[in-house]
């Protein structure tokens, strides 16, 4: 029978062993040097299921230190069930400080949203990515998409966007709208809504992306050009909330959640980013992201 001592082993700081951390760190540096390029990495199994944020976790755990303050969000919410689970896990293995306050965090792990509040050069945002390959919808084999990236052969992608326009009158990509990074690589921004996409462009913070199941990581360094794919005559546009208002704040220049009421007919809208909503309610000043789309909305407002 096994000795008891075997069952009492404690885990390393930040769970992952140092060998793997080093590997992830080396690859993160390469990812920064080649913005938008997907670096393959070992992606060891975690006690969290594949598809539930393992890639984000690998990055967060390779980055985090004793002085970090962690914010963990899922669909814009700090209190979403999976965010709670992941936050607990990181907290348990690092004893780090955690927060809901966007401004206070040094490290933010997110699924499917960028905060409404603008991030600073002291902050790193880590995205959980389900499908890192923006070309997967047009080419199913990995060795082929890799070649397409190598040769900047993006004709198939442009064709698909064009076909969508011909068929439906618009590029129908919703969340995860493909972007061109630094004029070289087409990149999937992870399934963030189009509302968030312009905030990747020329940001102050570092954006890092981890796709655990597909074993890829990539990066957008600060002050890097990130442009949504668009045509001369068919422009990228963000989601439209101009006819609705947040039920709690009356504000509508933010990404909204749509909630059906119990009667199944009436709908109410609320600001999606839970910390931003809290701050609006409590009338705390927030430095919101600005970009040409949001600025236009604010101008129309006046």
């Amino acid at each position, binding site marked *: *029978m*096994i000795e008891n001592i075997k069952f009492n082993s404690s*885990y*390393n700081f930040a*769970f992952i*062993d140092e060998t793997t951390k080093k590997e992830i760190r080396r690859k993160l540096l390469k990812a920064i040097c080649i913005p938008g390029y997907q670096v*393959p*990495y*070992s*992606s*060891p*199994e*975690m*006690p969290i*299921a*594949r*598809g*539930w944020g393992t890639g984000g976790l690998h990055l967060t755990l390779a980055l985090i230190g004793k002085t970090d303050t962690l914010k963990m969000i*899922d*669909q*814009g*919410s700090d*209190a*979403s*069930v*999976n*965010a*709670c*689970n992941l936050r*607990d896990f990181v907290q348990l293995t690092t004893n780090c400080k955690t927060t809901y306050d966007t401004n206070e965090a040094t490290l933010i792990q997110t*699924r*499917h*949203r960028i905060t409404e509040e603008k991030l600073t050069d002291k902050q790193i945002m880590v995205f959980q990515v*389900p499908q890192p390959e923006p070309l997967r919808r047009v080419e199913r*084999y*990995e*060795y082929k998409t890799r070649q397409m990236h190598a040769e900047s052969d993006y004709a198939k992608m442009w064709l698909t966007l064009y076909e969508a326009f011909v068929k*439906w*009158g*618009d590029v*129908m*990509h*919703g*969340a995860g709208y493909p972007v061109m990074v630094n004029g070289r690589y087409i990149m999937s921004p992870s*399934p*963030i*809504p*189009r*509302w968030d996409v312009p905030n990747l462009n020329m940001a102050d913070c570092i954006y890092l992306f981890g796709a655990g*199941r597909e*074993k*890829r990581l990539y990066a957008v360094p600060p002050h890097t050009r990130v442009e949504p794919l668009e045509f001369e005559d068919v422009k990228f546009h963000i*989601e*439209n909330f101009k006819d609705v208002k947040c039920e709690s704040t009356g504000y509508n220049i933010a*990404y*909204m*959640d*749509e909630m059906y009421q119990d009667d199944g007919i009436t709908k109410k809208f609320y600001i*999606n980013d*839970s910390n931003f909503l809290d701050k609006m309610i409590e009338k705390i000043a927030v430095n919101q992201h600005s970009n040409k789309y949001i600025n236009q909305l604010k101008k129309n407002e006046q």
Partner: protein
Amino acid sequence: MAYVSVKGGADAIAQAKELVEYYRLKDKTKPIEIEQIKSQFRLAIDKIMGEGSLYAPEYAAIAFKQMEGDVLESAFVLRAFRATLQRKYYSDILDTRNMFVKRKISSSFREIPGGQVLGPTRDYSQRLIDSTKYNESEQEIENFLSSFEGKIEKEKMQEITSFNKVIDLLKAEGLLMPAESNYDKTVKDVTLEAVKYPAPRSVTLQMLARGETGGLMTLAYSSMRGFGDGHGTIGELRYGSVKVLVSDTQGRKRYIGNVNLTECEMITKINTTKEAKIPYFAIGYGLVLGQNETKAICMSILERGIRSGKSENPANNQEFVLYHTEGVEAMGFTNHLKLPHYVTFQSGLNNLRESVKRNTNIQDEKMKVYKEMAKQFQK
């Protein structure tokens, strides 16, 4: 209650965790001992160790108990545990020719060196439900054991050693296809780096050995039914235990224990080409932890199919087979659909509504024109 509330997610998780533990225990039955699971659920444990890619029967049994008997979930727990273990040594190459054979059969020959050894198998018994198992008593178990052990001729036990393989016979006669000249012999470790396609054979073998039994079977079956190379012949299927040795820093070989393995060598015919006119036999190879014959057989079929390089069939396509038989990843991604997706959904909804609006405008335009035309006609 909504599963994403503004606050209270942490609370809900804690309670859900407690509730599922309650479900495991609520009928107040006696706790199952790990030792019992290990010995009485031997095949489940073997499957968990194989798919979890960690040979640790006790830990597999704990996982099985913890996961209420879900084999794939147990394999997942084992894999996560495996990832935290330090890799101090790589074992020397296991030679299955030195296997202490518990079972070996060949369908290609009536007799093979050492004979056909049926060993522990239910292959030839009727799958009738045995209701006497409902009330199995300790006394009955003891009676069975003493009668069984009484029949064993102790002095004969010593004679059983190891046996040559069937493929050695074919090889000696020159009937096996020589290895392809472009054969990539690089040894990768799929748990330490991301797989790049096309990947060397070492990657195929490792990933299939870690693959999910059901997934492997689905694809291998498709290959046998007509979407692949057809029906091979089992050269040899053997199950038994093999010694594991590691070399220490001074280069001395150290014995660290035995593992039980199932090995399958599948004989298939290959297509001839202009250069290679002889329709040699080719071997597909399967090796899995524990006794899991279905998986070993399917692995050998898929391994051969992938090497044949004809990729129009899913089961022959390396990328397709290896990505999609990875059960722990597939299960994780399938279940991630349960996570909230309302941000993504809202974005799609927004697009769709605009599209509907655009079309309604076009429809309205068209209707106006039609109405105009209709008026003109009436005039």
